[in-house]
C-alpha cells in the first residue's frame, strides 16, 4: 500500500500536450478515479505512474520515494489493462501466477497464493483452462487476479470494464468496489464513464485537455463543480446552463436571466467578465405555478418514479426532473422555480465557477463509501 504523489507532471508528444502541469496526491488505501473524455490525459497520467511512459517534466513519488525514472518493473505497481492482456499461450493458473514466477518465488508459495486469489475472485474452477475460451467477465477476473496476486503497492486500472457488456459492467463495478474494501490497496482507476466514477470512487479527479479541473469526493464534485466543464460532464442528464444578463457585484443574491430574476447563493467575488452563466441541475428546478420563470412544455419523458420534463423558456430549453405526481402536458404553460441554495454561477469567459456561499459550507463527504 502506498501514497502516490504527482508533482508538476507534464507530458507532451511532439507539439501535443497530453498532460499539463498536474499536481495532486493519491492517499494510501484510496479508490481514486480519474475521469474525463478520451484524450484528456487521464490514461497518459496513469501510464506515467506505472512507468510505461516517461514524463516530460515533473516528479512522481511513491511513498515519498522519487520513482519518476524507475523502470516499471521496479515500482511494485500492478496494472489492469482495458483489453485484459492475458497471455493467450498460457492457462488461467499460469496467467495469474506469472508475476510471482517472474519474481522467482518458491513453487509451493506460488501455488498457494494463486489459489487463494482464484478463490477470492471465484474462478478456482477455471484455473487449468486456457484463457482463449473464457467469457469476458472471467477474463476480467483473471486480469484482476494477476494484479492482486502480487500484493503490490498500488493497483492501476485503465478502463477495466470498458470491454464488458453494460449489464455485466454494473455487476463488476460492485465487485471491484467490494474487492477494494477487502484488499484495501491504493487504487487508481481511469474511466470516461461518470456513472462508474460516481459509484466507485472515494475521490474523483476530473481532467480535460491535459488539465486537472477538480479533485473531490463524488458528492462534492457533483454539488460544487469548479468549472462549467465539470458541471456538464458529471450528472445525467447534465446541468442546465442559462445565459445571464449583466454583471454581478460581490455579495449579489440574485441573478437576472431572460424572463426572470432568480435568487441564488450570495456571491463572494465580483464577476469580472460581463457575462455569467447560471447552472441548475434538473432536480434543482421545480414546476410551480408561482415560479418566476415561465415556459412552455416541449416534451415529457415518464420514467416511473420520476419524469423528465423539457421546457422551452425565454432563457433557453431546460430539463426538469419532476416527481411523477406533477401532471403536465405537452404545450402547457408552466412556471419554474429554482432551488436557490444549490445554484452555481459560472464566469462565461474563464468557465470557472464564481465563489459564493455554496462553496463555504464544510466539504461534502464521499457519501456511499466514506
Amino acid at each position, binding site marked *: 500500500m502506498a501514497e502516490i504523489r504527482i508533482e508538476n507532471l507534464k507530458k507532451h508528444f511532439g507539439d501535443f500536450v497530453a498532460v499539463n502541469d498536474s499536481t495532486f496526491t493519491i492517499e494510501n488505501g484510496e479508490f481514486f478515479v480519474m475521469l474525463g473524455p478520451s484524450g484528456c490525459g487521464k490514461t497518459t497520467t496513469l501510464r506515467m505512474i506505472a*512507468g510505461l511512459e516517461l514524463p516530460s517534466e515533473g516528479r512522481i513519488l511513491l511513498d515519498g520515494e522519487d520513482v519518476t525514472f524507475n523502470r516499471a518493473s521496479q515500482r511494485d505497481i500492478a496494472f489492469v489493462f482495458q483489453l485484459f492482456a492475458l497471455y493467450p499461450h498460457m492457462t488461467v493458473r499460469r496467467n495469474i501466477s506469472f508475476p510471482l514466477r517472474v519474481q522467482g518465488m518458491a513453487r509451493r508459495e506460488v501455488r498457494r497464493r494463486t489459489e487463494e486469489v482464484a478463490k477470492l475472485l471465484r474462478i478456482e474452477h477455471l484455473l487449468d483452462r486456457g484463457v482463449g475460451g473464457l467469457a469476458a467477465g472471467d477474463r476480467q477476473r483473471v486480469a484482476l487476479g494477476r494484479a492482486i496476486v502480487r500484493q503490490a503497492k498500488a493497483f492501476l486500472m485503465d478502463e477495466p470494464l470498458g470491454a464488458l457488456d453494460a449489464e455485466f459492467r454494473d455487476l463488476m463495478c460492485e465487485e471491484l468496489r467490494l474487492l477494494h474494501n477487502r484488499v484495501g490497496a491504493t487504487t487508481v482507476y481511469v474511466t470516461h464513464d461518470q456513472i462508474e466514477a460516481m459509484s466507485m470512487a472515494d475521490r474523483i479527479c476530473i481532467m480535460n485537455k491535459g488539465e486537472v479541473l477538480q479533485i473531490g469526493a463524488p458528492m462534492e464534485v457533483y454539488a460544487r463543480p469548479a468549472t462549467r466543464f465539470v458541471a456538464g460532464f458529471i450528472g445525467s442528464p447534465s446541468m442546465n446552463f442559462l445565459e445571464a444578463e449583466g454583471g454581478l457585484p460581490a455579495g449579489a443574491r440574485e441573478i437576472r436571466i431572460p424572463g426572470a430574476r432568480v435568487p441564488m447563493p450570495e456571491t463572494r467575488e465580483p464577476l469580472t467578465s460581463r457575462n455569467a452563466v447560471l447552472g441548475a441541475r434538473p432536480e434543482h428546478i421545480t414546476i410551480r405555478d408561482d415560479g418566476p420563470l415561465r415556459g412552455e412544455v416541449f416534451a415529457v419523458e415518464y420514467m416511473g418514479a420520476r419524469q423528465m420534463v423539457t421546457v422551452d423558456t425565454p432563457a433557453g430549453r431546460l430539463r426538469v426532473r419532476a416527481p411523477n405526481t406533477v401532471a403536465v402536458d405537452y404545450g402547457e404553460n408552466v412556471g419554474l422555480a429554482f432551488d436557490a441554495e444549490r445554484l452555481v454561477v459560472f464566469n462565461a469567459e474563464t468557465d470557472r465557477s464564481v465563489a459564493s456561499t455554496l462553496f463555504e459550507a464544510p466539504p461534502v463527504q464521499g457519501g456511499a463509501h466514506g
Partner: protein
Amino acid sequence: MSVSTKAYSVSESGKRTKWLAGGMVVVYALVSMIPLVWIVLTGFKSPPDSIAYPPKVVFEPTMEGYVNLFTSRSRQTPEYIESLGPPQTWYDALVRERNMVITGPSRFLGRYWNSIVIGFGSTFLAVFLGTLAAYAFSRFRIPLKDDLLFFILSTRMMPPIAVAIPIFLMYRELGLSDTALGIILLYTAVNLSLSVWLLKGFVDEIPREYEEAAVIDGYSRLQAFVKVVLPQMRAGIAATAIFCLIFAWNEYAFALLLTSGQAQTAPPFIPIIIGEGGLDWPAVAAGTTLFLLPVVIFTVLLRDQLLRGITFGAVRK
C-alpha cells in the same frame, strides 16, 4: 415446372457451385502437377527413353539417372571390364552394362550440401534479423520510419541481373566471391525486405498491452519480447521462414554469376550435368527431384503454422 424461390445467402453456395469450384481446383492441381510428375518420371527413364518422341508415358524404369547423378564414370574396353571380376554392387552392374566403370562420386552431394547450408543459413539470418527489425519498426518511434521501410522494400524492386555486376566486383574485392558466406549474406539481404515487412504485420497484430503487462510484472523489455511476444509470433515466423527458404533454395541468377566451384549451389549445377553426347536428362531429372524434397518436407511440417500465417490479419481469435 416449379421455380425455386429460395434465396441463397452470399456465404452459402449451392451444390452445383460447390461441385464446379471443386472441379476447377482439381483441374488446376492436375495442371500444376504435370511438370512435377514428368520430372519424377524422367528421373527413372533411360537416356534414350527420356528424349523419345513422342514422349513415353509407359517405360521400363531404371535407376540409371540416379546412379549417374551421384557418380563419375569412365568408358572402358569390354576386356578391361572383364578383368575386374564380378561387379560388387547393383549400381556397378548397371554402369558396366553400358561399358563404363565408376571412378568416384560426383560433385552433386557437395552442391546439395551447399544449397542446404546457404538456404537454411540465410533463412535463419533473415528471419532472426527481420524479427528484431520488425519489432523495432512496430513498437518504437523511429525517425524516418516510413522512408526506411520503403527503402528496405525497394531492394526487392531491382532484378538480380541489374545488380549482379556491381555485387560481383564488390565481392571480388572483399574476397567473398564463390564463398558460402558471401551467398548467405546476399540472400539474407534480399530476404530481409520480405521478412521485415511480413513480420511487421504480425507484430502489429499483437497488442502492446501484453508486453506492458509483462514489463509491469517484472520482466525487462527483452524478456518480455522473448517470452511474451515471440510465442505469439510463431505462426508468422514459420510462414516467413518458408517464404525465405523457398527464395534462397530456388535462387538461380546470383548463384550462377557469383559461384563457380566451392560454394556453388544445386540450381546452377543440376541443369549442366553432362552425359555422353549432351545433357544427361535422367540425371538432371533425378537431381531436380531430390532438390524438390527439402522444401516439400519443410512446408508439410509447418503447414498448420503456414496456413494460419498466410491468412494473417484476416482472422481474429
